[in-house]
């Protein structure tokens, strides 16, 4: 089962849980699963059916480019990070 890693500032939504195993084979399904467990989670991550522009999602250490549609493996880790710019 994939594991979602919750940013520390969002852990008040998840009762202090940092790592949460959830069902899902896409980032969308992982976010929906988290929303069903912790209502309000999705709004912090998603806006207009897209990952918020100020947030990046990494699956297994790689920032994904396909947003909510990105594939998530059975043993994957999903991280929510601040979006970044390079020089």
């Amino acid at each position, binding site marked *: 089962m994939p594991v979602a890693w919750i940013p520390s500032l969002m852990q008040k939504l998840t009762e202090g849980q940092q790592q949460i195993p959830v069902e899902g084979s896409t980032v969308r399904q992982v976010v929906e699963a988290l929303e069903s467990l912790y209502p309000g989670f999705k709004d912090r991550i998603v806006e207009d059916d897209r990952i918020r522009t100020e*947030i990046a999602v990494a699956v297994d250490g790689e*920032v994904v480019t396909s947003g909510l549609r990105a594939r998530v493996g059975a043993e994957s880790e999903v991280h929510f990070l601040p979006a970044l710019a390079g020089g």
Partner: protein
Amino acid sequence: MSAGNGYKVIGTRPVRHDGVDKVTGRAVYGGDTRLSGLLYGQVLRSPHAHARIKSIDISKAQALPGVKAVLTGADLPKTGDTIVDLGEGPARLKYMSDNVLATDKTLYSGHPVAAVCASNVHIAEEALDLIEVEYEVLEAVLNLREAMKEGAPQLHPDMTTQEFGEDTGRTSNLATHFQHKLGDPDTAFASADVVIEREFNTATVHQGYIEPHNATAMWNADGQITIWTSTQGSFAARAQTGAVLDIPVSKIKVVPQEIGGGFGGKIPIYLEPIAAMLSKASGQPVKLIMTRPAVFESTGPTPGSHIKIKMGANKDGKIVAAEAYIAFESGAYPGGLVGAAAMCVFSCYDIANGLIDCYDVVLNKPRSFAYRAPGSTQACFATEHVVELLAAELGIDPLEFRLKNSATTGTRRIDGVVYPKMGCKEVLEAIRDSEHYKSAAPSGPNQGRGISLGYWFNVGLQSACTASVNNDGTVSLSEGSTDIGGSRTSIAMQFAETLSLDVDDVRAQVVDTDSIGHTDVTGGSRVTYATGWAAYKSALDVQAQMCERAAQLWEVEVDQVAFEEGVFSSGDKSYTFKELSGHLDETGGPVIGRATVNPDSGVGGSFAANIADVEVDPDTGKVQVLRFTVIQDAGKAIHPSYVEGQMQGGSAQGIGWALNEEYYYNKDGQLDNSSYLDYRIPTSLDLPMIETIIVEVPNPGHPFGVRGVGEANIAPPPAAMAGAIADAIGVRLQELPMKPSNVLAATQASEGQAALAAGG
């Protein structure tokens, strides 16, 4: 010339394809743009760091003979409260527009308030003096820690602190707050045998590119706009200009010119919408070139910072916990670079417990933008300082201490991400094995040696290439990555390697936005990686099409055609690539290979390290660099000379950041050192030949193992210089720049403390 490792082209050092044009002065830069009927623009900038614009009267300027148009912020389309990501990270569109031309307030001295175009530049300058702006001057705040205090002058009364997708509803200058946490740092610190905590401040610095910003625009009567500009991203410039002007990108063609340096500072737009609007108003093409003071006063410096680092280790030399508090200047508008600093601050080490707490703070300076590994240099300076102190306290050699705690493949960073295959330990081992490190450290009076280690994670993003095969077997390769560091040749080399061609038979060119698929900015150390990947894929596309042509000629099925080392064959028949290219007209016409990429896996980061030897003048505080070595993991060096050039360039800039560079504002919030006479970047007279050691830990996520090398090299120099200065004079500075006056002050303070301790 053979490259070894099975490669024929990769790893060689061909003459760069743009070299002759560059050294003969024939290369066309933005300032060289000439068009019939060209007008010249100038921008009026606020003298106040913080002011409300009460009125702007342009009537006298408009009446000046030769003036063709005058523009203010009121002429730009009203933008909604939209968040956009147009190639330079997420930003609020209104802020982007207001940074081009202020509307209600000016937020830094140098903030553009009006623009004019005229038949020559002198008339345009004269017209600026005729524009009457009535300001209500407001209290400004230019100090980071002052800006964070309750009651500080507030730049954006409606701006509330964002905490990772949550609007806190609190208004202040704190734009963003976020944290990363791993494990249980409190418990780990309690168990540590040694805990060291220090605070650091670093100054605002500029990217220091030689070529000033420029833009020439022609707004045709049919509504089509062409913009010639110096940019790190032609598509980003198009998107940003379209957003600010509220017109579709299909109406805009951006023609990227050669670039005289960018380093992250030429990702945002400044002049492009102004040139376009002045052209629309005048009906003629308009060119604007910033003056040097305008570049310093108005374009993205990289942030000053306030950082606290706390680290704990056990007696056996293992780091068990780390905490960082990082506050970064965002400048006049939110959207700063503290997120990257957070991901780099402890990235070189394997630490199981940590907390990283970050703030992005607005204040009355130009909006901060990226500068080569943005955020990593400040973070590295702070972390490496504490790492050195921990090693000293534990009595462990600093290099051994780093090796013992080095991040490696599989290490989980404090932001949670697990490293793929990485070259951190290999870079440290390269220090250990280097002739420089093995040689005796300088032992004269006030001489010393320092080492340091830094990281940058690199990005992938979108790239496109098209390859047109000519009937003589040469290839015209088009790409959209604007070429800052010689990337045209490194892209051509990857294409040539794939098809076993001579690299001089592949001519790469950077083309405009109408002539290639969307290509993201030249930034994030991504071009040799991602555009190189697009070149590789486009070569495979060419190969597949050429196999079909050979099959036609030989009247066999395509799966009966093989391609190896530049030769197509089937049975006893064969064609070289050149020979087969001569038969394209009889087998269906031209062959054009194409490919696009947007890799979301395999983006390998890069580690870099330094060894620095210095001598400090005890009377003046001036630091002389005696010897300097940079080591970096390139994955696979496509063109080793380019890699070395990037390593040397980043090192030179990092040394300048370490020793001299800073924005110096007066009490009225005006920049007092907006020229290269007063903003001191290193020259060749200040530096020794910077020695380079390329480490190659291939990135398994790239066809040739490439890691981007454009940025990590700027992270470690200030930390290495600080270590060398400490070794030389016994004083470890916690502030950048370590300019002579700061070195002297720190020395005197240390001597004073020593005297007090001795009862003197």
